């Protein structure tokens, strides 16, 4: 009996380079989200001339740079096989630390301390505070062997509680303009938070792709037992991912404070789910070992474009969450289709 030729649907002959590149592209998980973004962009620019203006696009990026930056960190943790639910709280905490450090003192009757430190030092302190939260997360997970979900859920509460408790629920404000500039200013035509995002995304992306520890992170997330038995410094790498995640959430948190000009105890409340969603929509696998920073940033941008679209498309505000949820599902479904294709 001869082999039925019709079985060979995809010929094994050397494919044309174009086809091969095409296949590589369609195999990348980031592709689905790019498709979705293009679709959304097409609809939006069709129905509103406001969408495709540089100022609108930059605004979207500026407004979502913090989520995107936090998503970079969460990507590291998730790729290494963990999870961090405390990012929202960490953002608020870092923001508060920077705010207290930089604030010139308020005008209200009950006052929090304020130190009027130079903006960059305040920025560094905020990021440091985030890294500290990350370090505690890491130690809980690695040294005390608490499940990441529970460890970081606990820290979500503790850190948010700290923010509310330290401030007695008050806001911190009155910052020098050099500080608020970090959130509100421009570098040329580009909003400064976007500059931060681009630089950090490049750094983290290069770290994952080219640094020894980046490869370790993928290996640990791929199979922690094997990584341990291969002699990799598993504990240290895992702690590092949490520390970096905390620090990056810290950067995001400080940038929000600088952008809004105020640190409120409710800041970034519940953002953990959005940050994680950004990463996962962008193709980061929750079971570890897979995903890129590029995808996570795209995921965050998608969420941002969505918020923008709500207003541009005149979606009633009451339906916004349904809309966002729907797009998350849609992105998952497009991803399924893509996987079938390839």
């Amino acid at each position, binding site marked *: 009996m001869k082999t039925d030729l019709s079985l060979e649907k995809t010929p094994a002959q050397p494919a044309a380079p174009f086809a091969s590149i095409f296949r590589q592209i369609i195999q990348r998980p980031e592709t689905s989200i790019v498709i979705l973004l293009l679709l959304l962009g097409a609809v939006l620019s069709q129905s*509103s001339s406001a969408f495709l203006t540089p100022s609108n696009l930059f*605004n979207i990026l500026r407004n979502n740079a913090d989520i995107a930056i936090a998503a970079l960190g969460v990507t590291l943790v998730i790729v290494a096989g963990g999870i961090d639910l405390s990012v929202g709280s960490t953002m608020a905490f870092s923001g508060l630390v920077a705010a207290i450090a930089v604030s010139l003192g308020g005008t209200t009757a009950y006052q929090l301390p304020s130190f009027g430190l130079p903006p960059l030092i305040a920025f560094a302190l905020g990021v440091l505070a985030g890294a500290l939260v990350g370090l505690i997360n890491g130690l809980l997970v690695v040294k005390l062997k608490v499940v990441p979900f529970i460890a970081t859920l606990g820290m979500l509460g503790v850190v948010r509680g700290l923010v509310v408790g330290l401030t007695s629920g*008050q806001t911190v404000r009155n910052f020098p303009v050099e500080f608020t500039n970090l959130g509100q200013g421009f570098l040329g035509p580009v909003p400064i938070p976007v500059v931060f995002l681009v630089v950090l995304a490049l750094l983290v992306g290069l770290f994952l792709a080219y640094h020894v520890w980046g490869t370790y992170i993928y290996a640990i997330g791929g199979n922690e037992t094997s990584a341990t038995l291969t002699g990799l410094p598993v504990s240290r790498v895992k702690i590092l991912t949490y520390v970096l995640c905390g620090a990056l959430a810290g950067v995001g948190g400080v940038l929000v404070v600088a952008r*809004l000009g105020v640190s*409120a105890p*409710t800041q970034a409340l519940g953002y953990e789910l959005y940050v994680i969603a950004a990463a996962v929509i962008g193709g980061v696998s929750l079971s570890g070992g897979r995903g890129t920073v590029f995808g996570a940033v795209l995921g965050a941008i998608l969420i941002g474009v969505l918020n923008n679209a709500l*207003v541009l498309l005149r979606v009633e505000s009451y339906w916004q969450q349904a809309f966002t949820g729907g797009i998350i599902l849609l992105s998952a479904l497009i991803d399924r289709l893509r996987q079938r294709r390839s």
Partner: protein
Amino acid sequence: AAPPAAQPQRPQPQQPVSEPQPGTKPLTFVWSPKAVNNPVFDVARRGAQDKAKELGITVEWVGPESADAQKQAELLDAAIARKVDGMGISCNDPDALKPVIDRAMDSGIPVITWDSDSPNSKRITFYSLDNEAAARKGAEIMVDLLKDSQNKTYAILTGVPGAQNLEARIKAFREVADPAGLQWVATDPCNDDIQKGIEVVENRLTANPDLAGYFMAGAWPLFGDINAMPKFQQAAKRGMKTVAWDILESELRLLKQGLVHALIGQKFYGWGYDAVGILYDIVVNKKQYPPFVDTGFDLVTTPEQADVFLKKWETGNWRD
């Protein structure tokens, strides 16, 4: 001694007289509440829509799902990109919304604030009650209600800790109440959640069963069924006095039952109806407004006054 009577101070917002001009594209205003999941803003929305219909303009209701300054700013940025004709904002935070408001004003979109202000921004005017004045008034009533009581302890219920207007109310209340001899016991947050509010009140009354007064800086637990709060009912029956914010239908009924003793009311409907009128005046009639339009506040302490407001809820007619 009877509690002081209600003193409805009602400045008459200037009723715009202009008619919709035929032939031009209808104006679009964006009206932004702090959160769309909060029922008190629903009345404001209806007010805004009623006014919009009268004026032949469009009012879009654009707000964050739940109170979040960052998200509100983001949504308003998109509205600026669309170049709407005006915005009315209840600010989640004065400073956080300032850059957006300034951006809007700089790009020629007039902005007013209502309910919650951003005083340092370029906004044209602020339409609201004076939170601190109203809270002080509430405190005076509480002091008076407890003047014959041996026990002068009271607790405060708040929503999300840190919310600007709530903190202002609490601060003003205590500035009057504490020097007058009332003893503050605790301030409990309920995160603007009805369920949590009920549980917090019940827990508080478990811990302090002899509490003499309760100041609720928002109406959260009173949205629910009073039977969900047996301890609160018991406490009220043995004489605990409650001063609560807002004049909602459910609160009015409680007041009539003698379970709640004073209600401080904001002009929900006016946040929409009157404030849209003001912005229309500014945009179309080029009227000047002072930086603060005090709406005054309503005070309900007697069943008769309660009936007046119940009527408004029933008919939906808030205009007179």
